[in-house]
């Protein structure tokens, strides 16, 4: 809350009670006072004054801390040490505290961004509010969603906030008990590798400093403030899709989801229909773990029989035999590109159906 705002209220209060009234901030400086000459003075109180709850008296003035407990941000003082001064101090502290809370909520940029990404504000209001908050609405920003998998005694939110302390550019928002959103201002045209590096630094810091396991979903960079909501949704989708298809990597970029993203967007009935069409009845279930592992390695090695057999430590002919068996069971010859791609997509669809991820 600005000192000028406090000054205006203090003047009105002085008119009502006819005593000198003022406010001291945490640096022990008088930031507003009905006696204008005292603004900027160093107050006689100590920092301990900001911790207490009740009034106290010093050098002919009654003091009362106000703001968020337990460590208040301001101390109010009223001239006099009589009962009336104590009553005035208590009363004025309550009203100043409420005014401050209202002001903070109304002009809290963090709260505004939270409303934008959660779609809690009408599109038409976004630009009005942004202008009111002197918010630069046309810079490049990205949303990173940090999901905490293992909870420790340390608050991951505090850590992330300390990593990005520039409150004018970066916003750290608690979404729920496991998710933290970071809305970060970035330079236009930033390489997505740099975004990945940024996400990696968050994961690594949480892991190395606080033994916290985390993963990060990265939305696409957006130029307009109203698009932050979609960037946030993309980050959510990235985490959900990554959980199904790419669970070994803690950083998942929305723009790297590829086919997985398409499958995620398909209705489950269509997926089930596709599986029924591709595989003869029960054929996919008849493939054991070893065969599925073989198929996965075969895909990883770009359908190269020699390379796959080397990686699997089996003879080439053993691999060929296994591929023949798969063909017999499913009707798909994985050495053929078209069949291989159908099989690959079908396996992904199956994985998606069994994981049943949250839809955004």
């Amino acid at each position, binding site marked *: 809350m600005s000192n000028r705002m406090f000054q205006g209220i203090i003047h009105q209060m002085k008119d009502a009670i006819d005593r000198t009234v003022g406010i001291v901030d945490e640096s022990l400086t008088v930031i507003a006072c009905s006696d204008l000459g005292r603004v900027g003075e160093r107050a006689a109180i100590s920092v301990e004054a900001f911790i207490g709850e009740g009034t106290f008296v010093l050098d002919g003035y009654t003091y009362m801390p106000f703001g968020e407990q337990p460590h208040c941000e301001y101390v109010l003082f009223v001239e006099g040490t009589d009962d009336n001064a104590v009553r005035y101090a208590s009363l004025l502290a309550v009203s100043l505290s409420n005014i401050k809370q209202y002001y903070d909520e109304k002009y809290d940029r963090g709260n505004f961004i939270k409303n934008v990404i959660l779609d809690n504000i009408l599109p038409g209001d976004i630009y009005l509010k942004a202008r009111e908050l002197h918010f630069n609405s046309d810079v490049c920003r990205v949303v990173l969603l940090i999901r905490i998998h*293992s909870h*420790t*005694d*340390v*608050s991951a939110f*505090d*850590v992330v906030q*300390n*990593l990005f*302390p*520039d409150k004018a550019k970066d916003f750290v928002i608690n979404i729920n008990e496991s998710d933290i959103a970071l809305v970060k201002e970035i330079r236009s045209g930033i390489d997505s590798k740099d975004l990945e*590096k940024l996400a*990696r*630094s*968050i*994961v*690594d*810091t949480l*892991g*190395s*400093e*606080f*033994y916290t*396991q985390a993963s990060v979903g990265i939305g696409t960079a957006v130029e307009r403030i109203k698009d932050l909501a979609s960037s946030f949704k993309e980050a959510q989708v990235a985490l959900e899709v990554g959980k199904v*298809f*790419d*669970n*070994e990597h803690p950083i998942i970029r929305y723009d790297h989801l590829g086919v997985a993203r398409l499958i995620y967007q398909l209705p489950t009935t269509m997926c089930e229909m596709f599986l029924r069409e591709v595989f003869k009845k029960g054929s996919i279930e008849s493939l054991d*773990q070893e065969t*599925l*592992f073989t198929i*996965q390695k075969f895909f990883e090695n770009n359908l190269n029989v020699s390379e796959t057999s080397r*990686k699997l430590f089996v003879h080439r002919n053993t691999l060929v035999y296994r591929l023949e068996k798969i063909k017999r069971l499913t009707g798909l010859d994985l050495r053929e590109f078209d069949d291989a791609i159908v099989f690959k997509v079908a396996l992904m669809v199956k*994985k998606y159906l069994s994981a049943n991820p949250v839809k955004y």
Partner: protein
Amino acid sequence: MAGLSLKHIYKKYPGGVVAVSDFNLEIKDKEFIIMVGPSGCGKSTTLRMIAGLEEISSGELYIGDRLVNDVAPKDRDIAMVFQNYALYPHMTVFDNMAFGLKLRKTPKDEIKRRVEEAARILDIAHLLDRKPKALSGGQRQRVALGRAIVREPKVFLLDEPLSNLDAKLRAQMRTELSKLHQRLGTTFIYVTHDQTEAMTMGDRIVVMKDGLIQQVDTPQHLYDLPCNMFVAGFIGSPQMNFIESVIVKEGDRYLVEFGSEDTKTRRGVKYRIPLPAAKIEGKGLEEYVGKEVIMGIRPEDVHDEPRLLEEFADCKVTANVEVTELMGAETFLYLNVEGFNFTARVEPTSTAHPGDTIEVALENVKIHLFDKDTERTICN
């Protein structure tokens, strides 16, 4: 202080990806062990399993005598330094190092003692009041190390901590880390893909590929006695030369034959390099006679000096010089011998120029032979 014991450790992800298979390793107390391998070989996953940031699918992990599979990371008495460390930009170096301890409610005087001690060890005591933006890359790296040191752990886990530094600084920090290990007298487990880091810093090196340990040994043994072609090729820079060859026997002598001679036209040359008897004794070379093998020879064992050409007169080959690289203390010659590419590390006084045809000698006592199918070493 503590040793570690990893017994039959596996990491399998729900999707079926197997990142680490049957990992067995005993790490001694105060040892500096390096895990090295190409990206995706499972080295970082193994480190994260030790840290407790990845669940162990099966197997047992002991730190000291304690089975820690189900112990929370914070209770494992370990500290980690990762590649992408981030410092808190608005905090001083002191606060950066103290932040973790503060959040864990460590008493103030204890924090001060630990931070000052770590700063003294890392030689950054004079920087404690500075903010990260006023530090050089190396100083920032030290602060990241300091954050780990203040925890006074039994084991340090370092995951490519020097990768973000430039080459000069990296070389400098390698020495610093070795000194730090000596000063702290703690177990260090260090992951890197850079074989130079592995060779220069570790007491022992674990070479990994595709989630499997290939070889665990001291740097010198790995270099001299690789157990397979992968280790032979991965360790050493420039890497070992590999040439497809055939083993032939002439009387009691075994020879490695390679070249491009066409049996019909008699064009090209076939070279035969005799293998010293002591080298192949008891290696079962008989079964390879007439079969294709891979011959490996390190660049420093390919010579162009007249004295050595004379000494290894029966191991000479004719080579076309394609490129030369003067490195100052040595020169690399990139050669072509009958279609095979060779790299030679020779004296800087070498007079070879691109386009020249020269004679080089292969030091046959240093030749390695590998099975072409299994890629395992036949003899070193």
